[in-house]
């Protein structure tokens, strides 16, 4: 029953999407468009909730539920299982597309009718592509002929609260760029540069997409940190890179839009970035879902899917970039500006971000290119990215500290240096104190800590002084970046790792703490059994700091072992314990990490997200006006 209804709803949303495309392209009728966008929104919403319902009631006549769920699974993970697999996640993707579609429609008024309908036409095309992809190659509503008593279970490493909400947030990010793409295409197609303030419409969508992408990536990192048990939170995995690249493009886009707003310059550039952000999102999806790049994110592999997505990306890309090649010259202008100004700093930020994006892109695809030409399999990993992308970013971060306080036009250098020198000296002082405390020296560490305080202090100063309301979001987001850099530097430079074999009652020293292995017990969870190690942590005065209980879980239904790291967090450091293999007589392998300042990564990401949302609220007001 569910499968028939689900298929019906899927095809119904396809019908509405095609209807919307035709109405917008050939008739320009507001009334019909309203029917189409609303119908699309409701039908895709219902199909998504229908699948979720099938998971909640464990309807194993649906192949997708049978393959990914089990009656013993906790309810929240039954719900999140609906998007924890390829087919279901495409349904979520379509639903979010239609939500953005509806928001685009809401921009409609008498003056901008042509423009909005053109954007909706493009959006409808994107939606048709994704619905066809889902219905034809990844249909979540396939029936199983024979009756099944229970499901096959769900990959237990996905059974984690951070991962349950990671895909929806990330998809809001990716899919948000579809609306930005549609607006860019509409602008180029109509080339009514003067009449429509297209950048005003584009900005809130960029802000939403970028903010949610930030928080979505951060949650993915949190998951990797807690669940994979590798002690780190970022691995330059192809899938991580696939989300990082649109984020970088989004960052450049966000800053360039300010230039369009204030100076009417960089318009061609912004239109290109708007196209690229979404194209990179789709290409990223292609790389992940086709299986041509191997990573920790394995989705079910199917070559026909890869060919479909690639063909679709080709259609979108060729259409938009041909349009760009033909029409964008009308948006060129000759507004030159001096380097030492706000414009200059934004332009510099743009260049750096794009170079970093290109570097990541090259590193991610390099193994594929090598394979094409030489048939050798190589892998590009952390050392490449850390030694290229990271140093390139440093000057941009330095500029970021002063960009917001630079004036438009031309800044007087001497006055300006007088203005920034107190903060500059103060940052050096804080860095110095910091190192006195940590007693650990590293060149990159010094630079990282200095830059983070440089940004934090500059932005705090702006916050303390009265600032214009429209800048509040930007300042908060920049503050978040400073905090994020503090966390990244601390945890990557001063991480201490100890891997040893421990028997019960053994003790080990890590930094100022001593960790005692008290006991090991068997425990039973809702759908797993586990060995739980019990460790007590003492500080140098022999006070008990905490008890840590890392687990080795075994999920009998899927026959998978997972490790649950146990972590004690405070503002200065994380203590992170992973229980490895072992037995009573020989002892267990135990990995203990001392990760300084990790929590600031999460606080920073959240602050950036908040900044984006504050900006978003401000920009929405502009549109409603």
């Amino acid at each position, binding site marked *: 029953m569910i499968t028939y209804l689900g298929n019906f709803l899927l095809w119904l949303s396809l019908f509405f999407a095609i209807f919307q495309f035709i109405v917008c392209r050939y008739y320009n009728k507001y009334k019909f468009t309203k029917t189409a966008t609303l119908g699309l929104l409701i039908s895709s919403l219902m199909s998504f909730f229908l699948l979720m319902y099938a998971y909640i009631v464990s309807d194993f006549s649906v192949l997708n539920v049978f393959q990914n769920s089990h009656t013993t699974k906790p309810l929240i993970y039954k719900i999140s299982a609906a998007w924890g697999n390829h087919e279901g996640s495409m349904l979520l993707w379509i639903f979010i597309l239609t939500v953005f579609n509806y928001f685009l429609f809401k921009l409609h008024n008498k003056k901008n009718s042509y423009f909005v309908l053109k954007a909706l036409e493009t959006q409808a095309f994107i939606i048709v592509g994704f619905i066809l992809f889902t219905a034809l190659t990844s249909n979540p509503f396939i029936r199983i002929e*024979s009756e099944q008593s229970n499901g096959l279970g769900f990959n237990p490493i996905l059974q984690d609260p951070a991962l349950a909400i990671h895909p929806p947030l990330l998809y809001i990010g990716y899919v948000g760029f579809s609306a930005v793409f549609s607006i860019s295409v509409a602008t180029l197609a109509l080339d009514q540069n003067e009449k429509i303030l297209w950048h005003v419409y584009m900005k809130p969508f960029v802000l939403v997409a970028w903010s949610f992408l930030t928080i979505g990536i951060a949650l993915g990192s949190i998951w990797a940190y807690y669940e994979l048990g590798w002690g780190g939170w970022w691995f330059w995995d192809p899938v991580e890179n696939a989300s990082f690249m649109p984020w970088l493009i989004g960052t450049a886009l966000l800053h360039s839009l300010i230039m369009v707003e204030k100076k009417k310059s960089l318009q061609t550039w912004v239109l290109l970035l708007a196209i690229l952000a979404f194209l990179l999102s789709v*290409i990223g999806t292609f790389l992940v879902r086709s*299986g041509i790049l191997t990573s920790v994110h394995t989705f079910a592999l199917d070559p026909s899917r890869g*060919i479909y997505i*690639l063909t679709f990306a080709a259609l979108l*890309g060729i259409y938009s*970039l041909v349009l*760009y090649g033909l029409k964008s010259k009308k948006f060129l202008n000759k507004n030159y500006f001096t380097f030492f100004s706000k414009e200059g700093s934004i332009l510099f930020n743009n260049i750096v971000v794009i170079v970093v994006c290109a570097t990541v892109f090259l590193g991610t695809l390099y193994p*594929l290119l090598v394979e094409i030409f030489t048939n050798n399999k190589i892998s590009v990993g952390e050392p490449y990215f850390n030694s290229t992308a990271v140093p390139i970013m440093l000057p941009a971060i330095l500029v970021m500290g002063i960009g917001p306080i630079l004036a438009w036009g031309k800044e007087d250098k001497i006055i300006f240096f007088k203005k920034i020198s107190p903060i500059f000296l103060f940052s050096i002082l804080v860095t110095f104190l910091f190192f006195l405390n940590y007693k650990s020296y590293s060149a990159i560490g010094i630079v990282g800590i200095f830059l983070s305080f440089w940004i934090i202090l500059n932005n705090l100063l702006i916050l303390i002084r009265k600032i214009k309301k429209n800048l509040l979001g930007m300042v908060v987001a920049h503050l978040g970046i400073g905090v994020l850099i503090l966390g990244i530097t601390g945890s990557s430079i001063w991480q201490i790792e100890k891997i040893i074999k421990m028997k019960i009652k053994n003790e080990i020293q890590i930094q100022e703490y001593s960790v005692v292995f008290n006991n090991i017990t068997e425990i039973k969870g809702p759908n797993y059994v586990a060995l739980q190690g019990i460790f007590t942590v003492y500080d140098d005065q022999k006070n008990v700091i905490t008890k840590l209980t890392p687990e080795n879980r075994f999920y009998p239904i899927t026959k998978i072992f997972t490790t649950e790291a146990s972590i004690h967090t405070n503002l200065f450091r994380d203590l992170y314990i992973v229980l490895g293999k072992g037995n009573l007589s020989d002892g267990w392998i135990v990995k203990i990490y001392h990760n300084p300042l990790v929590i600031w990564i999460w606080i920073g990401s959240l602050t950036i997200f908040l900044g984006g949302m504050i900006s978003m609220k401000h920009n929405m007001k502009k549109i409603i006006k």
Partner: protein
Amino acid sequence: MKKQILILPLLFFILLLIAFFYILVIERNPSEIPSNLLNKNVPVFKADSLIKKEKFISSKEFGNQILLVNFFATWCKPCRDEHIYIKRFSSNLNIRVVGINYKDDPKKTLRWLKNLGNPYSNIALDKTGKIAIEWGVYGIPETFIVNSKGVIKYRRVGPINEKIFKKINIIIDKINNEE
């Protein structure tokens, strides 16, 4: 000069597409993932047999002649689709095919084989999915070629179709010639 730059993104994108299509279509099929077990001996296991009274013992089944190992289940639709090719291997080409029935109900499987025909010389029951884990199976159907020394020579993830059917034949001929 300046305006020509604006078509550069398009050119770059097209080059990228060519590379991707090349990898996807010509160069490499993601269904033929090089298995970690490639050129290694088959995993040792013991299981109940669906069609014989005595136990299915891997050392007795493998290592005597070239054969195909096919992971299947009745609940899996693609397995039904590829069944015709499995039958062609065993009846037309006289290649021994060993089935491994993945997480399934034996009664249903017997009925399924009765309806569609049984191409398998023996079928191991993998009720818990343990055998599949040892073979590194991604998802069913999945098919392996094992040579007469019990060494895995090829792996196919996903159903067998006309193209793969021919390819497997070529590989088996090659192994026969080498031996």
